[in-house]
């Protein structure tokens, strides 16, 4: 008796679903921030008075530059954690934790900055510049908090030896986006003086 068994070629995903899904999500997030940047640019170009308006509390450019450095360093730390993980290096855990700590430091300092600005009288309704400042920086801060939760989850899974490489790579993609978009927003909102 002969059996006709079809031998199908083995199919292998070239990109893990977690990574591809995260990339698609990041594309939508990039478009969200691109929309905000475009709106900011158009409103700024149409401003009838100097930008930012005179008499408005000054944004803490120097302190936020240091804060930016903390976020960028956290990006390097999370990326290094992924590289260590792929080499089965035990430093992946501490590096991931360093990334989480620096990210949390960024969010905390941003929160303190907001409290100081609000106490100085800069609110959402002060001017178009102030509205965009709170909208853009606030949207980014929310993204940092969400992405930080994803990195913390990856760290906990790493400690429980449940983390797989595609999961960590997807986390790195998200964190890299959150870190990478910030310098653009910083230059635009904090340093983008002049009408």
């Amino acid at each position: 008796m002969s059996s006709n068994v079809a031998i199908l070629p083995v199919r292998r995903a070239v990109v893990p679903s977690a990574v591809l899904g995260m990339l698609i999500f990041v594309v939508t997030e990039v478009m969200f921030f691109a929309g905000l940047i475009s709106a900011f640019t158009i409103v700024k170009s149409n401003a009838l008075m100097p930008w930012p308006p005179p008499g408005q509390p000054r944004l803490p450019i120097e302190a936020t530059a240091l804060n930016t450095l903390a976020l960028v360093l956290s990006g390097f730390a999370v990326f290094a954690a992924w590289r260590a993980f792929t080499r089965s290096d035990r430093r992946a855990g501490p590096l991931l934790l360093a990334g989480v700590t620096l990210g949390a430091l960024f969010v905390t300092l941003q929160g303190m900055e907001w409290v100081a600005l609000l106490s100085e009288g800069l609110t959402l309704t002060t001017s178009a510049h102030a509205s965009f400042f709170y909208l853009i920086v606030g949207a980014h801060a929310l993204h940092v908090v969400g992405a930080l939760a994803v990195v913390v989850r990856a760290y906990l899974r790493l400690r429980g030896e449940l983390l797989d490489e595609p999961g960590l790579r997807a986390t790195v993609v998200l964190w890299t986006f959150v870190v990478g978009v910030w310098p653009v927003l910083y230059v635009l909102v904090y340093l983008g003086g002049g009408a």
Partner: protein
Amino acid sequence: MKARVLALAAVLGTPAVAYACPVCFDANEANRTAFILTTIFLSLLPLGMVGGIAYWIRQLTRE
């Protein structure tokens, strides 16, 4: 027929309000430039990102 002639006369007689783009005739040059640049930016960005991902996946399948 009479209505069509009147409609044509109305369109030909008021070309200034028939612009398709409401910002192409802004008096503020900086604002007009900003609209054009952001239109280019928002048009090319999704194409670039999706194209980049597609190119990357194609390179991976060739390896």
